[in-house]
């Protein structure tokens, strides 16, 4: 005979305000094998937990039912509590009276109370068949993989590496840095972006604990927390980095000089063999195979001829390597939205002087093509009237994204400030919907930009068209209730951040979910902001959603501390709620082997005694370290040989039966 204790939680008024908790408690006390039932205001709190502990002693309980919020919220809390008592942590059932009952049935209190009784009855029936489960130890491979070499990835890598653990960074581009070194100044302090970012890049490149793989991507992930087997594909660079000294002779001699330079947003050109930018890390060139004459037409070959160390290798191929990592940080970053396809009313990209924020960063950047002079891309003239348009693609669910991109208000103010600083007689108009500056010294920065003379006009721009050598911008000033027109020499569109291409595919390799906008979903939006639902996989930076540099760096540090925390243990506890094979029933058909998404099941030959006869045949075997307890195999198994521990067919049938008994 089991001895079950039922604890009904009011959750303040969340449950108690709708469900008659004392009635549920009294009802629970009448259920079979329930020896104690009580209700508490907050069962998750310290006093609430103490009551459970006391009741276990007083009533000699061996199974617990907590009727409270979703088990996703506090099941780990009760499990942790039970691990310090004589009750096995898996002899616990949580009846969800909040999300499944009080929150959705607030309009009918009587029915909600009846439903609560049913939920408790089901939980009691299920826990009656629970068996004790025990965790196992999983070894931890103390090496971290960071995906993305922007400021988020670099910060996380440095923090983990400084704690003494090995780190590998995988970066798709040919250099570390991401977007930050493209920027001119960073708000609100206006320190030079490259001056604070490139030293970090070089620190990462030179760190003895950090390996940097550029032009690389993750192609395959196997294994589990502490023991991820990850395949990394390094794309051909056509330059042997062991031999290359980065002298740059090849790039000066390359005859293919008319390739739009992505780093400068196409404002100037680069060569086929090129270094992404002057302070790139690694400070070595790569060959752009699509434009190299040797690789496309088997002509030229100048770079190989001039290279003093013989580092050029036209035969270079993509290479795949597989390594084991204990933890992963996803820091896949962002791109700016392709506004050209979405906003024909802004010229759809046809006007050379209607540019996005990153274009402007390259124009005003001292290392950009105009060496920091603000000039129009079309004719190189200094603009005397500039319009800045915010929320292009942001807060526009119809054409772009519904979310606020968070950083645009601030970099819009920065651009306004910079233009007035560089060209004091230039008129700057900023069209905005709201100004959102919730950061340290942020609003002061915005007010300063206004005080500099930026004319802020509250309204969206409806149209931009060319008239002579300037552009006419139509907008509204809803503050004065007037439609306004501005003749602008240049228009800067502060466009939305969108998830980097391939972010969702990369996340899916790790079983991590992304939302409708491809941002990675955190394990809990408030309490587990840098973890993902996959154990051992963390996130940092804009990959999770738009944010600015200070927030990104803070989040990267948080992700690193989670990894370091994990690496401070030699082993982790496994989840014991895994699939279990009844070999007597297993026919050895192998269906489960193919259906398992984690590759946790294999067929092994076993010597069995069946009907007093010795037989040797294949049966399924589950690797407890790999099994994640998803249950797919238990559904697929025709003879019903597979059962999920903690969710056995028997216990679930008991639950259903309990509900069906009137």
């Amino acid at each position, binding site marked *: 005979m089991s001895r079950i204790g039922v604890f009904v939680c009011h959750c303040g008024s969340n449950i108690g305000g709708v469900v008659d908790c004392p009635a549920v408690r009294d009802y629970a006390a009448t259920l079979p094998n329930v020896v104690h039932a009580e209700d508490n205001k907050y069962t998750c709190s310290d006093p609430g937990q103490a009551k459970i502990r006391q009741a276990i002693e007083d009533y000699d309980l061996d199974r617990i039912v907590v009727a409270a919020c979703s088990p996703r919220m506090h099941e780990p809390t009760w499990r942790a509590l039970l691990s310090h008592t004589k009750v096995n942590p898996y002899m616990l059932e949580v009846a969800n009276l909040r999300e499944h009952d009080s929150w959705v049935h607030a309009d009918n209190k009587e029915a909600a109370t009846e439903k609560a009784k049913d939920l408790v009855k089901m939980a009691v029936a299920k826990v009656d068949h629970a068996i004790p489960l025990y965790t196992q130890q999983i070894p931890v491979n103390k090496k971290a993989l960071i995906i993305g070499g922007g400021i988020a990835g670099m910060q996380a890598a440095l923090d983990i590496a400084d704690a003494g653990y090995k780190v590998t960074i995988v970066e798709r581009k040919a250099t570390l840095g991401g977007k930050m070194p493209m920027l001119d100044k960073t708000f609100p302090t206006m320190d030079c972006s490259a001056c604070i970012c490139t030293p970090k890049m070089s620190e990462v490149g030179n760190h003895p604990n950090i390996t940097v793989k550029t032009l690389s991507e993750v192609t395959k992930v196997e294994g589990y927390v502490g023991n991820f087997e990850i395949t990394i594909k390094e794309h051909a660079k056509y330059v042997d980095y062991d031999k290359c000294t980065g002298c740059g002779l090849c790039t000066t001699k390359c005859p293919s000089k008319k390739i739009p330079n992505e780093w400068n947003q196409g404002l100037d050109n680069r060569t086929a063999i090129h270094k992404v930018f002057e302070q790139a890390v690694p400070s070595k060139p790569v060959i752009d195979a699509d434009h190299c004459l040797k690789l496309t037409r088997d002509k030229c070959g100048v770079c190989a001829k001039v290279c003093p160390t013989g580092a050029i290798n036209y035969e270079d191929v993509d290479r795949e390597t597989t390594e084991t990592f204990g933890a992963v940080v996803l820091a896949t970053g962002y791109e700016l939205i392709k506004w050209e396809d979405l906003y024909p009313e802004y010229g759809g990209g046809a006007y050379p002087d209607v540019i996005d924020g990153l274009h402007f960063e390259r124009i005003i950047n001292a290392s950009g093509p105009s060496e920091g002079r603000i000039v129009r891309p079309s004719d190189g003239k200094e603009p005397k*009237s500039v319009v800045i348009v915010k929320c292009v693609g942001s807060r526009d669910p119809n054409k772009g994204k519904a979310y606020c991109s968070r950083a645009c208000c601030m970099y819009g103010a920065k651009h306004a400030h910079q233009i007035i600083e560089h060209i004091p007689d230039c008129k700057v108009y900023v069209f905005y919907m709201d100004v959102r500056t919730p950061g340290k010294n942020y609003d002061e920065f915005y007010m300063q930009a*206004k*005080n500099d003379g930026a*004319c802020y*006009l509250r309204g969206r721009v409806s149209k931009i068209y060319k008239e002579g050598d300037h552009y006419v911008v139509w907008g509204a000033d809803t*503050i*004065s209730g007037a*439609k306004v*027109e501005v003749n*602008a020499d240049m228009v800067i569109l502060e466009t939305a951040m969108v998830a980097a291409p391939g972010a969702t595919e990369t996340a899916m390799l790790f079983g991590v979910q992304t939302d409708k906008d491809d941002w990675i979903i955190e394990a809990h939006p408030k309490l587990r902001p840098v973890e993902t639902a996959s154990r051992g996989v963390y996130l940092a930076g804009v990959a999770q959603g738009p944010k600015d540099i200070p927030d990104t760096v803070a989040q990267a540090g948080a992700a690193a501390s989670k990894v370091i925390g994990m690496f401070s243990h030699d082993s982790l506890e496994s989840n014991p709620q895994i699939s279990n094979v009844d070999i007597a029933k297993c026919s050895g058909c192998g269906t489960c082997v193919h259906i398992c998404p984690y590759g946790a099941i294999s067929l092994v030959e076993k010597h069995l005694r069946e009907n007093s006869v010795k037989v040797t045949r294949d049966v399924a075997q589950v690797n407890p370290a790999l099994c994640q307890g998803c249950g797919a195999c238990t559904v697929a198994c025709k003879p019903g040989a597979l059962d999920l521990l903690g969710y056995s067919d028997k216990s679930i049938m008991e639950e259903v039966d309990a509900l069906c008994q009137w």
Partner: protein
Amino acid sequence: MHTVNLSNVSPDARAACAEIARKADVNLRDCYQCGKCSAGCPMSEDMDLPPRQVIRKLQLGLLDEALSASSPWLCAQCQVCSVRCPQGIDITGIMREVRRASKAAGKRSLPESDVFEDLFLKKVKKKGRSNEQYLAASYNMSSGHLMQDMGSAPKMLSKGLVGVKAQSVRDIDAVRKIFEKCEEGRDA
């Protein structure tokens, strides 16, 4: 909704708006258009542009629209807006200076709005105080409302509330000095 081309706003108009603000000792860029001034203004219900809008017009350099508004003339100079402004802008001062500029430019929207003010000051300057009976009479003459409040005159005369004889302060020179000082400051 009418359209304003902000690029075509004349530099003179911008300069004039800036001058109004300078005289009121206000930085127009300080105003972030929260509307607290207008929400608390006891006169705003009767104004065509609430105080916030008057400042907005000045911010955008739309001088004519600011000068032809009724608001500065309806403003009671009660200071509620100035006291409550989170940016510490002297909106009352702006209203005062817009009123002056409006009068100078001949843009005042309410035809008699300055008649009483002018007469009052003229009388005070001359006698050191206002004599209600003459002020009322002059106002009726100047404004064209000849019979306004005439019905109450006999009763007030009989009760001695107003007299026939104009009174003057003893030291009229001191009053003149006050006026001179104020007029100096006005154009400073």
